[in-house]
């Protein structure tokens, strides 16, 4: 195999520079970089919003903002973190790493890839514009329903809801286009000899994620479209008077929403085992078991949605079905946990920053999963639902399981992407600050929720004060620790110790056979895999 694998319009290489390079690029690494940068910026924006929320919650009573504004911050924070921070980060890694990992010249549909990214900034504008418009007296601000859009509140709301609906549409198109690209790339661009069952775990995680996106994002698009017609064109999808049902929206939303939580995590479950194997210096344990478990979780995730609204009223057989099917997801998840731990077992482990994040991730994400199991219990959920317990649960899964996983990936691949080592000491400090501050922020919230503090309310009873104060102080510490992360990345992009091609002693996989940073066109010759 020594044929070149890439051709171009013309045999020249005068790439446009400056802003035009980024606007027009079809290069998977450029596009990956844009996704990752966008994600980091939106992570900071969403983080700034939540610091406003925590500041308000520092004391009981209303101090800083009106309840309407508080609710707007909550909803936009969530939408930004999920759709503009976490998902683009995973897609950014997919763009950067999948072609490198499977020995492909580029992503299969490069122009579509470019579009997938350039839909994101417009959608971020749509999400945040209502805040600005409100400053000029136009409309009453952003969406105030939380990220879940439940009617009738979302049918009543002002232009913020419309903006959010269209933001979701653009984000949805972006996700579906990205998924199509990834599916095609994985099926059609693998190096000769790389069978599906030899694909890196990250590729597997993304393949299943892409399937889930293609199956569920259009349902969300349909649901918010019906919301739009209920708002403006007189339909009665979600009002009982016309024979509709507001709870139907919850079904449609969570048919997307529950798979979405796996969409956010499957890519992370892909590369964490790779990090574990690198720093344990022994092969990944249970590759096949992991692949089958990913499939099982992907399949189960589309049939458990109603566990998000047990308390909304459902026939008992439905309650039981959704309870048991939800709990069944823990089985393949437990298989994964076992494989992750067994990968490290008796390895010669070292704890560079990516490994610290990966190991911390296992523990913290484990707490997220176990508390989910508690929530899945119908009887217990009657107490926990809509309380801070749920908030703490999904932050253990989404901040620890999602964002901290992504951070592990950033430290792991940054030297490959930039060609420089990051500052290891700073990385370790960042890990410990993040891990401690994160737990300090969210452990109190479990107790607040158990004691009855409801979510999405800016005020609370005075007996909750101390725990809220701890949580707020820790949240600010958590927020400001992330500046170290940003600083470390910026310095690493600018310079630093040269990274070797292999970067990590125990690294395995095709991406480590290329130079650091890899050449502009990744594999001009497809490698052969045995």
């Amino acid at each position, binding site marked *: 195999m020594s044929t070149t694998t890439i*051709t171009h319009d013309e045999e020249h290489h005068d790439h446009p520079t400056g802003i035009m390079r980024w606007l027009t690029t*079809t290069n998977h690494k450029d596009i990956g970089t844009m996704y990752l940068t966008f994600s980091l910026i939106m992570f900071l924006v969403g983080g700034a919003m939540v610091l406003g929320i925590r500041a308000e919650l520092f004391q009981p009573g209303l101090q800083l903002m009106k309840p309407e504004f508080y609710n707007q911050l909550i909803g936009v924070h969530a939408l930004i973190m999920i759709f503009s921070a976490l998902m683009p980060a995973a897609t950014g890694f997919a763009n950067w790493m999948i072609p490198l990992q499977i020995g492909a010249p580029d992503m299969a549909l490069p*122009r579509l890839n470019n579009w997938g990214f*350039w839909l994101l900034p417009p959608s971020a504008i749509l999400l945040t514009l209502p805040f600005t418009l409100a400053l000029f007296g136009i409309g009453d601000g952003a969406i105030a329903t939380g990220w879940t859009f439940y009617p009738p509140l979302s049918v009543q709301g002002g*232009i913020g809801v419309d903006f959010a609906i269209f933001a979701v549409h653009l984000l949805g198109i972006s996700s*579906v286009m990205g998924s199509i690209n990834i599916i095609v790339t994985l099926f059609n661009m693998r190096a000769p000899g790389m069978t599906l069952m030899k694909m890196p775990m990250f590729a597997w995680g993304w393949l299943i994620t892409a399937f889930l996106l293609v199956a569920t994002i259009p*349902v969300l698009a349909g649901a918010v479209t019906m919301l739009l017609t209920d708002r403006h064109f*007189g339909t*009665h999808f979600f009002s009982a008077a016309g024979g509709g049902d507001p709870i139907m929206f919850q079904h449609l939303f969570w048919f997307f929403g529950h798979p979405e939580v796996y969409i956010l995590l499957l890519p992370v479950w892909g590369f964490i085992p790779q990090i574990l194997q690198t720093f344990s210096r022994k092969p990944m344990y249970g590759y096949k078991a992991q692949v089958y478990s990913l499939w099982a979780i992907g399949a189960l995730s589309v049939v458990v949605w109603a566990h998000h609204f047990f308390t909304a009223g459902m026939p008992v057989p439905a309650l039981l079905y959704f309870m048991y099917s939800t709990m069944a997801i823990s089985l393949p998840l437990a298989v994964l946990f076992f494989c992750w731990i067994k990968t490290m077992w008796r390895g010669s482990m070292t704890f560079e920053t990516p490994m610290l994040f990966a190991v911390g991730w296992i523990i913290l994400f484990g707490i997220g999963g176990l508390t989910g199991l508690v929530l899945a219990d119908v009887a217990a959920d009657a107490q926990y639902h809509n309380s801070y317990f749920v908030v703490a649960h999904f932050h253990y899964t989404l901040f620890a399981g999602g964002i901290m996983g992504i951070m592990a990936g950033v430290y792991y691949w940054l030297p490959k992407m930039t060609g420089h080592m990051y500052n290891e000491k700073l990385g370790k400090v960042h890990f410990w600050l993040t891990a401690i501050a994160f737990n300090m922020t969210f452990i109190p919230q479990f107790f607040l929720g158990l004691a009855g503090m409801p979510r999405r309310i800016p005020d609370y009873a005075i007996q909750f004060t101390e725990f809220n104060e701890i949580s707020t102080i820790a949240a600010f510490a958590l927020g400001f620790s992330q500046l170290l992360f940003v600083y470390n990345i910026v310095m690493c992009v600018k310079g630093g110790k040269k990274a070797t091609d292999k970067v990590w002693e125990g690294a395995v996989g095709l991406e480590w056979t290329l130079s650091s940073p890899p050449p502009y*066109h990744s594999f001009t010759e497809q490698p052969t895999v045995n």
Partner: protein
Amino acid sequence: MASHLENQYFVPHGSIYPSILSVGLLTMASGFIFSVAIDKSKDLAYLQSPGKWMMILGAVITTAMVFKWMGAVITESLTNKYKGWEDKSFRIGMITFICSEVAFFMAFFGTLFYMRIISIPDLAGYDADITPYKNFLATWPSQGPGGIVLGNEFKVNAGMEFMKPWGLAAINTGLLLTSGATITWAHWALIKNNRTQLILGMFATVALGIAFLACQAVEYHEAYTHMGLTLGSGAYGATFFMLTGFHGFHVTLGTIMLIVILIRCMKGHFTPEHHFGFEGVAWYWHFVDVVWLGLFIFVYWL
């Protein structure tokens, strides 16, 4: 791994169309929001006409970019940039895209089934002592029990007529099924390199598509002017117009694509071995066809 006939994969040079396309969509979406802002707040009435202009501008940008983009693809195809390897990418991509479209329609079919099986029987089934919906029976088609919606009274229109399956809808079923046959005939002709039959088949398909849309326009007109059936006619009106409307929108897109393909056939763009553009549109057309069968059965007939 499948053996590639050629080992060169074509990666297009940078393109500005996708990012301008996104700007077009942003303009269109914001324009729409401004133009309907009056619904929720009378103070925002002044946004209505600028909103409409923005929408038009956005639509123009969007359409122009789609055509530019597709034009670039056609040029690349004609200059033989795409070989077997790229072709396979397009095929997998198109299949995945159609799957996502199926999921989109599932949302609306799901809504229809939910209303018919769950929400309407539930509303009719409350205890007679406490129900706010006395005398409401769980029948289909239904406009719901009527009542107050966010402060406005919604009254059931007793004189409303429902759609019947064995009229225009049956004719439309015939039209679409026939068009599925004619496009297959055209495809055979293309493979056998029979250009007359190819163009004839494509022409028939386009004509049938347009006839379908015309019938649907008549049907909608009837519904609004004579039958009292509108988007606002409760569960039935909402699901009827949403499902047939989105389907009609897809037929419109499909017909436009068929016209492009017809022109390309006449220009001789396709060879018996190399015609993904044709096949992709044919797949899309069959998909639209199948969705219609679902509509005919569950919306009009049962």
